[in-house]
């Protein structure tokens, strides 16, 4: 994918990206349903509304690149190509889950996809991302590390320490700030003295760009340029995606902190219909094919729930596995 993502969008790619966004949307909606049935417990943070960010950024990466995310990471995992079955099973707590059921919704891991979580302490994974990129540099590997976090994390000390370290050490990290305007229930204007978050990256000498996170094509283009810059220079890049979550912070959130009208306003910018309309207009997809994609997604979601339902509980006698390594030698 070059820098002219917009003009050279291939029909197959476009259809695939639309399908990914629909898959994430429907997967999240189904997860919410299963939560209300108590099939899924604990915290459940849904990505509905933010799909264009994960899909747009992840498609700019290759398989060798490392990816770290937050506790709102189902979308990134799906975009990365993780099987919906093992994600759903993980949320059910079954041992067939991607983390053997030990992590749940907030801790999806798949080392075969270089997907390193699923990190649930806000900002805590940014230093890890810097360290992973440092390792790549020391090992003369060409891969980059992509790290997703919210604007809430940008108020954490670990954000500032990590940006400084990444710039200082010149390591290949793509910092992706998903600015969805609310740190849990506290709005941007109550948490950041400087609301143009990209300026925080610039302050560390990091090339920084803000982009409309509700527009898949815009995210794709910005991500492609960012990745190209990182691969060429070995230096970090800070990409701020302005986005919005349509649903509550978690399943415990009564949404007292924002007006319904604001949510409705943002829903008009929904990235999925927007991208679908674009594909239809450009004759890159037909309505019949859209319908088919939606049916395929429905089937995949059904399959994932069935897979999770049929999953098995780990024996409690295994409880203390994975506290220390079972392998002894390096």
């Amino acid at each position: 994918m070059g820098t002219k993502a917009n003009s050279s969008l291939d029909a197959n790619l476009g259809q695939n990206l639309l399908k990914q966004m629909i898959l994430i949307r429907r997967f999240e909606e189904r997860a919410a349903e299963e939560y209300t049935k108590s099939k899924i417990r604990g915290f459940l943070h849904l990505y509905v509304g933010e799909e264009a960010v994960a899909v747009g950024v992840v498609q700019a990466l290759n398989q060798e690149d490392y990816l770290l995310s937050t506790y709102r990471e189902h979308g990134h995992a799906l975009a990365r190509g993780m099987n919906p079955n093992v994600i759903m099973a993980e949320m059910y707590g079954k041992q067939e889950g991607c983390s053997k059921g030990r992590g749940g919704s907030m801790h999806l891991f798949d080392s075969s996809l270089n997907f390193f979580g699923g990190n649930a302490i806000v900002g805590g994974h940014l230093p890890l991302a810097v360290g992973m990129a440092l390792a790549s540099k020391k090992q003369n590997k060409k891969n980059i590390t992509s790290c997703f976090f919210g604007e809430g994390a940008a108020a954490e000390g670990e954000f500032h320490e990590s940006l400084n370290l990444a710039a200082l050490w010149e390591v290949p990290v793509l910092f992706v700030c998903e600015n969805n305007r609310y740190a849990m229930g506290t709005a941007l204007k109550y948490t950041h003295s400087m609301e143009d978050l990209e300026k925080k990256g610039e302050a560390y000498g990091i090339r920084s760009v803000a982009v409309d996170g509700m527009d898949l094509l815009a995210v794709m283009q910005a991500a492609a340029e960012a990745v190209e810059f990182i691969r060429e220079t070995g230096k970090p890049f800070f990409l701020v995606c302005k986005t919005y979550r349509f649903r509550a912070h978690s399943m415990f959130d009564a949404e007292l902190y924002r007006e319904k009208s604001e949510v409705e306003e943002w829903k008009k910018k929904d990235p999925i219909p927007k991208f679908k309309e674009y594909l239809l207009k450009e004759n890159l997809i037909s309505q019949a094919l859209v319908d088919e994609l939606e049916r395929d997604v429905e089937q995949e979601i059904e399959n994932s729930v069935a897979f999770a339902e049929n999953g098995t509980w780990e024996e409690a006698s295994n409880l203390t596995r994975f506290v220390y390594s079972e392998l002894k030698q390096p």
Partner: protein
Amino acid sequence: MTKNVSLTYREALKMAIREALHKDERVFLMGEDVGRYGGAFAVSKGLLQEFGPDRIMDVPLSESGFTGAGIGAALAGMRPIVEVMTVNFSLLAMDQLFNNAATLLHMSGGQLNVPVIIRMGSGIGRQLAAQHSHSWEPFFAHVPGLIVLSVGTHEDARGMLLGALESLDPVILFEYTSMLNLEKEIPEDSGVVDISKSKVRREGTDISLITYGTGVYKCLEAAEALEKEGIKAEVIDLRVLRPLDEATFLASVRKTHRALVVEDAWKSVSISSEIVSRIMEKAFFDLDAPVERLCGVEVPIPYPKHLEDASVPQVSDIVEKVKKMIKP
């Protein structure tokens, strides 16, 4: 017959780091002032010149950031040695150590290893007052997923890091700054230490002195003094505080039937609390007397020397306590 060599605790630590750097090209040392300054305690002096800036990395004062970067580098196949200048600053990196290093293997269902080594200058005794005299061993030893080691002797200063290098799990090394200039003899061929086992430092039959860290030499000195009064004290250096090697101290208690646990850390909810509990659970009927403890007094450590000394067990306190326990 193996020859002995005389060296300081600092020299022993440095020999271990050098050997690790030579032995494994994935190893690098990162920490505040480890390079150009030569290490806050001169442990890494000269290593920058010998190994270059890629392997001896000075870092900014960002404890959480660089500790997390060490964890990240370990995840991606390196073997970082992270020096947190002193244990006092480790509180700023607690999120990384407790929430990431200790949990990633488990949360990922066994997919991710975190072979990072964290070294920290620790302990009391240099008149540095409350914020710079912490004994945080109990904090770290509380956390499943970490391997917590206490470097109480020159032999361990020489070999524990090398033992830690063979682990796939995060290892926390407590080093003691008050011992840096102390000179002792160790066998010339001292090397890799088994980091799963405690060590009997002196054999005895009358009482078990169970300790770690700066307590080891204090207890050995006390045992020496007690010997002159006809009391044979056995000295157990726990040295691995998590996961505990209870077999070694339980075997000792079953032999001597008496135990005194000695540590600098505050008494409540300490390493000694755990040791005493295990003895109660597993060797109660082997005891001839109640187990006793000498621990840090529960006060922020004060600056004046006489008050600082009064805050932690001294050799004379150990001798007195043992005499009371044996000849009531």
